[in-house]
């Protein structure tokens, strides 16, 4: 039967995620059951700790404030507007609201019955993922970290989706299972198992698995004296075996192992125990796939034989990043994992190159990562920025030593380029004779930059002072760091110059009225999130950390250390760290969506919530810049 109202509501709902992911017929049914509500400005929709409503809400007209009282102080957490969802808590769990909501202006809401949505959550994982994400952003900083664990607790459906990434992943299993025939003696079987370092052996007849012997069988049936080692394996084997087809997923494997109380699954051609054995899946394999994908990748890196393999592994790491994002894993953790993988790849490339040269390095050296890699803030593929320092040598040996390291650098950067790290356009790489020098030369170089801070030199110090040891001699690296701190201590005015440069990037606070977009070129009308939002935070952290001689390169780690050193400013530094996390997440998700480095954000593609989110990051930028202006008296520094 025709219904003009529900058709109109349908037309509205279908424009907004995640409702646009729901098939039309289902969405029309939802539209027919909407409750429309009107709220005057400042009228309360629900209060914090209210009992859950039977509906969650989408804003049809107007906007809604979400707030939370903490120790009797009201904090506005978010302002939602047209098309935004809120009041999702009852959908996730039957608990009172954690936040209150009130109309920010005259508002019309569509209430969507939660009862109708339970099936949708189960049937459309993308919808639930969106809801979880939106749920998480509504309770965002600084409260989300605290609540994150709690939010999804005891909701089976949601948890299933939350862990979906590894569960629907196909399980890795050994495709070359070790077998023996039923007539084999137990002793022979044990000898095979010992030789191959395996804890089980499959008994097959014409390649069809008929039984399995595990360490446990040896312990309970031989060790106890029930059988002797000259008995046949068929006497003690566990039969029949639990079988499964080849396309087994992690979740299925888990269920099978739990259900049958076994530690091994036989993978057969058609999944029955009547066809040929093609593999064996152990509980150990599952643990590796599930909790430890990064460590699995690091292991693969160790075993890699060439740069092509490293490239393949780095591509898998990108998938991991994407998966982490879909699961809303905290950004700090993701950067750590990805940095570890990048470091492992670089280390491996160095080892490969040394063995290619066929000669060990003549003196000790350190391979240094610079810039974002040095700060361990790299999530996406970016350019290479690296340098090399080697131990001081006699002038007579200098040339041959330097040539060795230049050759090494040549080979390493070439491999990294194959992996996907483009050559640095500014040639800030260890292959450049200027950046492949001895310790004394570096010391001299730093002194020059610090005592004569002309713009070009400041630019270099910004890149180089975030250096991080990737491979080689740690003492050499520590000596480098010490020489930087000492020289800066004697030349405090340098920090003022550094501060001046930082302040050249004011935060784009005129965001809505005057979005500071690129004026021309390929990225016209885009917002340069890297230069305008991320870099000022990184620069500020660097200056303060050089000032306090902090042995930390990572921006978040720097702000966290600063919070300890200056408890009176801990709020400022915390807000900077939070803003940095949000921006980094933003940049990475943009980069993943557009398959680029995420430097430019197309403002037209942002919804209002995202814009608000971005805007919330600009205030800390402004505050920390003000602090630097005061502290390092940048106004007294001549224009550089």
């Amino acid at each position, binding site marked *: 039967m025709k219904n*003009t*109202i529900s058709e109109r509501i349908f037309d509205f709902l279908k424009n907004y995620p995640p409702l646009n992911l729901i098939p039309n017929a289902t969405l029309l049914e939802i539209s027919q059951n909407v409750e*429309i509500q*009107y709220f005057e400005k400042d009228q309360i929709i629900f209060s914090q700790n209210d009992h859950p409503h039977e509906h969650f809400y989408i804003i049809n007209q107007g906007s809604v404030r979400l707030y939370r009282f903490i120790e009797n102080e009201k904090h506005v957490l978010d302002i939602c507007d047209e098309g935004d969802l809120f009041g999702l808590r009852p959908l996730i769990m039957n608990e009172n609201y954690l936040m209150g909501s009130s109309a920010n202006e005259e508002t*019309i809401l569509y*209430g969507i019955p939660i009862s109708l949505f339970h099936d949708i959550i189960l049937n459309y994982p993308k919808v639930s993922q969106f809801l979880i994400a939106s749920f998480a952003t509504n309770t965002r900083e600084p409260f989300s970290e605290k609540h994150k664990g709690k939010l999804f607790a005891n909701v089976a459906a949601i948890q299933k989706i939350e862990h979906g990434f590894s569960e629907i992943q196909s399980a890795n299993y050994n495709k070359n299972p070790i077998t023996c025939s039923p007539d084999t003696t137990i002793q022979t079987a044990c000898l095979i198992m010992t030789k191959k370092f395996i804890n089980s052996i499959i008994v097959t007849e014409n390649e069809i698995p008929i039984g399995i012997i595990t360490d446990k069988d040896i312990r309970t049936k031989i060790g106890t004296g029930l059988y002797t080692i000259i008995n046949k394996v068929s006497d003690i084997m566990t039969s029949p075996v639990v079988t499964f087809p080849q396309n087994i997923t992690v979740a299925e494997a888990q269920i099978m192992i739990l259900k049958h109380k076994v530690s091994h699954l036989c993978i057969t051609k058609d999944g029955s125990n009547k066809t040929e054995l093609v593999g064996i899946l152990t509980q150990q394999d599952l643990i590796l796939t599930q909790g430890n994908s990064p460590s699995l990748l690091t292991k693969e890196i160790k075993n890699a034989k060439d740069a092509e393999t490293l490239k393949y592994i780095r591509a898998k790491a990108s998938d991991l990043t994407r998966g982490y994002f879909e699961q809303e894993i905290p950004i700090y953790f993701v950067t750590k994992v990805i940095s570890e993988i990048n470091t492992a790849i670089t280390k491996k490339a160095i080892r490969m190159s040394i063995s290619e040269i066929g000669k060990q390095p003549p003196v000790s050296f350190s391979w240094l990562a610079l810039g974002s890699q040095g700060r361990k803030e790299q999530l996406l593929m970016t350019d290479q920025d690296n340098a090399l320092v080697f131990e001081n040598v006699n002038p007579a040996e200098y040339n041959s030593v330097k040539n060795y390291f230049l050759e090494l650098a040549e080979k390493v950067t070439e491999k990294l380029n194959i992996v996907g790290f483009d050559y640095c356009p500014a040639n800030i790489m260890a292959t450049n004779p200027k950046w492949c020098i001895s310790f004394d030369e570096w010391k001299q170089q730093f002194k020059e930059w610090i005592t004569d801070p002309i713009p070009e030199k400041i630019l270099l110090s910004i890149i180089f002072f975030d250096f991080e040891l990737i491979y080689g001699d740690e003492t050499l690296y520590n000596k480098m760091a010490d020489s930087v701190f000492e020289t800066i201590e004697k030349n405090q005015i340098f920090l003022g110059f550094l501060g001046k440069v930082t302040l050249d990037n004011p935060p784009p606070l005129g965001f809505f009225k005057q979005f500071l977009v690129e004026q021309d070129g390929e990225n016209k009308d885009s917002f340069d999130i890297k230069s305008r939002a991320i870099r000022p935070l990184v620069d500020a952290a660097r200056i303060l950390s050089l000032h306090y001689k902090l042995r930390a390169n990572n921006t978040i780690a720097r702000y966290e250390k600063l919070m300890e050193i200056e408890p009176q400013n801990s709020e400022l530094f915390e807000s900077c760290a939070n803003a940095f996390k949000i921006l980094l997440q933003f940049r990475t998700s943009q980069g993943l969506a557009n398959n680029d480095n995420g430097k430019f954000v197309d403002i037209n593609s942002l919804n209002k919530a995202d814009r608000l989110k971005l805007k919330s990051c600009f205030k800390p930028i402004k505050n920390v810049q003000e602090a630097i202006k005061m502290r390092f008296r940048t106004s007294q520094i001549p224009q550089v």
Partner: protein
Amino acid sequence: MIRFFKKKQVPKFWQEHLDKVQNSQKYANFENIRFVAIDTETTGFDYENDRILCIGAVAIKNNKILVSDSFEIYLKQEVFNKETVKIHGIRKNGNEAKLSEEEAIIKFIEYLDDAVIVAHHTAFDVNMINQALKRLKVGPLESKQLDTNYIHKKIAKTDTYKKIFSLDELCEIYNVQMHDRHTALGDALITAYLFLKQTSKYKKSNVLNLFDLINTNYHLIK
């Protein structure tokens, strides 16, 4: 006299209507009252000769518009007026599923239940329905009635006695977006929005009470 005489032959739907309205317990508590915003599209403005083409209605309860409790029905046209087609867009042989006047009116009365009718220029819509009821030898509607025009005049501080406000004017005043104007259910929804906004305003200086609201309609009998 006539009514009393006919009582035994009253059709079931009509008897139920009378019973429901007379026995309803809901009117005392505003939050329990089911309001039904209605609008009709007709072939014209002549009660005697023109006919209803479409009835649209949507329920409001406890300040919520319940889309699941809405009503939209098209009537077979015995009278055709090509002039008004321009306004409502309902053609004589259009695609909408159509019922006879009798079926449509019975369905509507059943839907109405004990609800309080809310409309804009309620007298017109109710009169059109009463005319149709009359042709079924019953009526008029017993339901309590409210009119967004009169509620506005009660609330508004200025030009209260000046004139009659059109639906478009009220939409302007109360900032209600006009979608599907001149479809019965579309106008019913607009009326429902007006009613929500009006009662919300009214509440600020008065206690919300059905009988006080009804008293705003000095032009209406009930």
